């Protein structure tokens, strides 16, 4: 015990009625009592409590040693959630809450695999067909037809099988829709066939120009041979 603290305590004891002799004896006793302050737990034990925090008990997920399991379980639940939402979204129609997810997964897939664009075009046409069968409101049908048009343009004439399949769907959808939507579908179909005609034509002219180049080469060759003959 520090001297000033001990002195203060002894003063207090005197005030409460201890005689000088008693105070002397008590002073010795105070020293004896202070000796138990050597009861000090090791630094390692204290660190263990502070770092390991071993007794906090809120169920197994809250223990540090299960931190990895905690992360793994939550990521798994999250992953299952994302995957099942994406799967469920694939069957959705325009106007459904999950339709946005469907479009998003399509974009992602086309980014990785451009040939998927053909499938996207067919999907739009199927949506128009299903909307027409379910007699959904005209605005949705028109919107989807326009979306179809955009996607089909992006396809750029490749994958003609898919275009044909999608056209068939639109032809079927035409039977069930209002006059206005019918006109819109017909316009889009007409535009599509014109565009594909143009594409065929441009391909043909490309071939022609190729054969033109060939003939020039032939003529040059003939001139060359004439020249050598004259020699």
């Amino acid at each position: 015990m520090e001297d000033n603290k001990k002195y203060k305590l002894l003063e207090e004891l005197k005030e409460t009625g201890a005689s000088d002799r008693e105070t002397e004896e008590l002073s010795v006793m105070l020293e004896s009592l202070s000796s138990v302050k050597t009861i000090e737990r090791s630094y390692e034990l204290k660190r263990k409590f502070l770092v390991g925090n071993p007794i906090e008990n809120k169920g197994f997920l809250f223990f540090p040693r299960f931190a990895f399991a905690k992360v793994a379980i939550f990521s798994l639940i999250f992953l299952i959630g994302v995957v099942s939402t994406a799967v469920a979204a694939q069957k959705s129609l325009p106007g459904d809450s999950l339709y946005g997810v469907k479009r998003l997964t399509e974009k992602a897939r086309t980014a990785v695999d451009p040939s998927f664009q053909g499938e996207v075009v067919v999907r739009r046409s199927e949506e128009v067909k299903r909307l027409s069968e379910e007699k959904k409101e005209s605005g949705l049908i028109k919107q989807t037809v326009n979306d179809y048009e955009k996607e089909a343009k992006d396809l750029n004439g490749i994958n003609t099988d898919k275009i044909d399949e999608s056209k068939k769907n639109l032809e079927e959808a035409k039977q069930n829709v209002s006059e206005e939507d019918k006109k819109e579908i017909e316009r889009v179909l007409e535009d599509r066939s014109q565009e594909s005609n143009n594409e065929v034509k441009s391909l043909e002219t490309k071939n022609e120009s190729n054969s033109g180049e060939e003939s020039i080469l032939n003529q040059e060759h003939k001139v060359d041979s004439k020249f050598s003959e004259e020699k």
Partner: protein
Amino acid sequence: MRFNEEFENIYIRYSDKIYRYLYFNTKDPYLAEDITAEVFLRAWKKWKELKKDYIQALLFKIAKNILIDYFRKQKNKKQLSLEKAMEKGIEPSYDEDLIERMHIDENIKRVTKSLQFLPSNLKEVVILRFIEELSAKEAADIMKTTEGNVRVLQYRALMKLKGIFKNGR
């Protein structure tokens, strides 16, 4: 969960005092360690609300409350929440070297034994004032009494202790 630096400093500074207080009150070094952990975990739960300049007395108050609770529950054969945690396989650690020394050291043995002959309020005043060197004000607050009364009790306790030291009981 990690504690903040302030809490860690307070734990390192005061946990031995709390441990000794609990040891002299329970005579069980293991139980004292368990309750010490509980004291600081409870303090950590309310860390933001606690007045840090008064923390020593607050920690002793928490310790005292847990102790009272523990002895009451013991009568009803209920367990400390901490013991339940241990049953689930969470092992708190103990300073075995220290515990062994506490059982051998003559001086510690003598003080521990002598304190057991004092009535609980006198024992408490001896621990708080003469061993842990708390101020009379802090001791009064923990013991829920006045400073004047603490001074009377501490004198009476020492006189009684003197007799116990002399006669061995």
